[in-house]
């Protein structure tokens, strides 16, 4: 096959970090090429070099055999390299047709009618269910993404970069996107596909390039690389660790004292439920998205308005209606949406870490600078947070490391009970493993942990008891032998296959 794009020995430095160290990448005509790696492996940096957002510090880029230099996103577009980002980079207030043609028309007058005609032709050809005259903001996210692709295709792109295009789409929409990708492939477009989802890589890609720590691990044919090996190459560790994290000794679990107990606890968002957790136990809420998992733990932490129910901690009745009361009672809560409820991007790693402790101490007892520096250094080391320094703004860290910073924040308050809501979402396999290990280590030290994750497998590995939710109600509790994927699915589905089909 013919090479359309070749990147040779790409080097990119950031202050204190070597983000890309001599990476090679080759894209052939008419192939879907997955670019894989953990967070911080250098995928995004490589893409940004290719699209002209970053300037490379070394290396060469060839397009169809000719050496090119890319100084800006416009340069990349003029060379036929188009990118569709995870966040839609179109204007929701304009029509579909305008979004496809704005910024690249010639002449001063807008040929609205002609744009709409051409847009309709392209939309029909690509099978995109949108009308050219529709306001873009009224289309679904998937369609908006497809319009972005249609724009790229109409610009006669030779290289199409899809950066995490599927993360906000549902299964049906993903299939529509894949169909579109396949039909573009047959027309000879080279597609670079960046994603976290392994199954999607195997479903649609022809070839895989793996990066790790800014270096090239290798390029493989998808058909010849088993999934297990791909993961091993991405994290660079043996996989055995993943499968056998812990074994639960049930008799031991029974003997532990109950730390937290709630009866008929309800909030503005959560229906009444009963819940308890023992000292040193790891349990979890599972269920489909929207089943009420997060709402329940938010009620425990007092994050939403608590409406009723009694709560006992160590056998004593307490009242928890606000987060600060929960924190004083020894409860920590790592929120689901780390960008909204977690990090403060402009503050440094150190400031983010001491935040919860400072709040608990009260603002009239400030933590001294040297003390906070010591805390920050300690947890950066313990949790292996990859940051240039403790004064680096958190916003510039990768997702996994941001999550570790928030974890450090809660660990610093020495909680007796830690609630982790989706702590591993959107972070790489290696860090996921580290977080899972940390949870088990905490439990050994006597900390109770409630763990929520969309990946059932992950919960089965870490939890000794699973509370299953459906439609905002607790529908089951699984322990011991019942802790397997099949049983969880059955409980979620209510033991009937009918529910599955309805979905």
């Amino acid at each position: 096959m013919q090479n359309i794009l070749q990147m040779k020995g790409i080097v990119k430095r950031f202050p204190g970090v070597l983000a890309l160290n001599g990476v090679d990448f080759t894209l052939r005509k008419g192939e879907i090429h997955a670019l894989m790696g953990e967070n911080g492996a250098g995928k995004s940096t490589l893409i940004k070099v290719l699209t002209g957002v970053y300037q490379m510090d070394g290396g060469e880029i060839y397009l169809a055999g000719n050496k090119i230099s890319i100084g800006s996103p416009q340069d990349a577009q003029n060379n036929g390299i188009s990118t569709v980002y995870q966040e839609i980079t179109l204007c929701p207030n304009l029509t579909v047709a305008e979004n496809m043609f704005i910024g690249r028309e010639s002449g001063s007058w807008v040929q609205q009618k002609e744009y709409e005609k051409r847009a309709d032709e392209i939309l029909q050809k690509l099978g995109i269910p949108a009308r050219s005259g529709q306001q873009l903001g009224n289309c679904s996210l998937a369609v908006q993404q497809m319009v972005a692709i249609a724009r790229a295709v109409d610009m006669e792109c030779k290289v199409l970069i899809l950066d995490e295009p599927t993360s906000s789409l549902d299964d049906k929409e993903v299939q529509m996107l894949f169909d579109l990708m396949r039909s573009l492939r047959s027309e000879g477009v080279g597609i670079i596909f960046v994603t976290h989802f392994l199954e999607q890589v195997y479903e649609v890609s022809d070839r895989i390039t793996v990066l790790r720590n800014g270096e090239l691990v290798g390029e493989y044919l998808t058909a010849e690389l088993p999934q297990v090996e791909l993961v091993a190459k991405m994290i660079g560790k043996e996989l055995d660790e993943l499968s056998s994290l812990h074994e639960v000794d049930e008799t031991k679990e029974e003997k532990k004292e109950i730390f937290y107990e709630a009866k008929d606890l309800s909030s503005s968002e959560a229906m009444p439920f009963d819940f308890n957790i023992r000292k040193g136990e790891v349990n979890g809420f599972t269920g489909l998205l929207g089943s009420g998992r997060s709402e329940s733990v938010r009620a425990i932490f007092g994050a939403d308005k608590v409406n009723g129910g009694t709560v006992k901690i160590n056998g004593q009745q307490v009242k928890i209606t606000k987060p600060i009361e929960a924190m004083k009672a020894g409860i920590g809560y790592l929120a689901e949406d780390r960008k909204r409820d977690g990090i403060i991007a402009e503050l440094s790693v150190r400031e983010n870490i001491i935040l919860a402790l400072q709040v608990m101490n009260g603002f009239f007892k400030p933590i001294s600078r040297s003390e906070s520096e010591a805390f920050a250094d300690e947890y950066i080391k313990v949790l292996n947070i990859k940051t240039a320094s403790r004064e680096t703004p958190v916003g510039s860290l990768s997702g996994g490391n941001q999550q570790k910073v928030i974890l450090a924040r809660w660990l610093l308050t020495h909680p007796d009970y830690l609630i982790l809501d989706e702590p591993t979402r959107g972070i790489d396999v290696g860090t996921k493993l580290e977080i899972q290990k940390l949870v088990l280590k905490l439990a050994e030290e006597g900390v109770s942990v409630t763990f929520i994750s969309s990946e059932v497998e992950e919960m089965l590995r870490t939890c000794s008891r699973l509370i299953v939710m459906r439609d905002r109600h607790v529908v089951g509790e699984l322990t011991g032998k019942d802790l397997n994927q099949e049983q969880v699915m059955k409980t979620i589905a209510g033991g009937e296959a009918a529910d599955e089909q309805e979905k």
Partner: protein
Amino acid sequence: MDEKMIEKLKSQKTYRREPLTDTQLLMTITICIFMAMYVLAMVFLKGGFLHPQQVFDMLNDNASLIIVSCGLTIVMIGGGIDISVGAVTSLVVMSCVMYLNNGGNIFVSILLALGIGLAFGLVQGFLISYLEIQPFIVTLAGMFFARGMTTILSVNPQKAAHEGFAKLREVKIEIPWLGYYAKNGNLVPARMELGVVVAFACLIVIFILLGFIRLGRNFYAMGGNQQSALMLGINVKKTRFLSYVISGVLSGISGYVFMMHTGAGNATNAAGMEMNAIASSIIGGTLLTGGVGNVAGTFFGTLTLTTIKKIVVSSGLREPWWQSITTGGMLCFFILLQSVVLGYRAKKKKA
């Protein structure tokens, strides 16, 4: 599956019109409310509202407001704000009056007005777009500067005593068939000032610019999502710069029109005009967050604002504060209405 979908699309195309865009929807609401309000005024208050001259009076009094509102609409569609427009208008009036009174030439005085507006637009646009300073701060500074300059030129009101200019002021467009018969039986034709013609010319030019010219659509793109606009290949800095330049030039024109209407320069001229212009744009369906709006809406926004003031006065509430209070209420009402309508749309889309 694809074929099915295409079939479906085709059938939809024939039976269904595209739903209104946000801009069109908000504009339609404003026009409807204005019409309803005016008709109600005609029915219940009668008096002046029954004469077409009432409309022309509203236009004559507010021609300059309409012009600055056009500029402000452009800036707001682009996601910015320009609060210097009233002060620049006032500075232009004072400068031109003094120039004419010192034996100036009418043609040069028009150039002077345009020049002052352009200068403000260029400097403010440069500071905002290329040095990336907050538009509110820059135009606030511009406002103080222009007000200060006006007072330096003359603390006392200056009446334009230029002969040629006096003649120009007297030029009125008379429309006999819209006139009425006075008590003595003479026909009093409806009168429209030259400024209104200028205002309509500005409206038409800006309407075409926003709807059919590339630059105009770029304003919408920039206001809709600045980052996206950049990614779509639009020169955002230049686009933003031009929006302030246009607003500046329109302030200059507005100043001249204001002078033709009042015939005198005064340090307190056009006080609060920027706020009335913002209110007109918002009532006309322009969102402060950018990306949505249209000058046709702005025109009706201005008329709505003026009509409500007239209604207040005609109802016997002659104290000036009643006008402010109703304007405030109106603005609140329209903003609430917009957020409810757009919120309902977003909800419907989700479902």
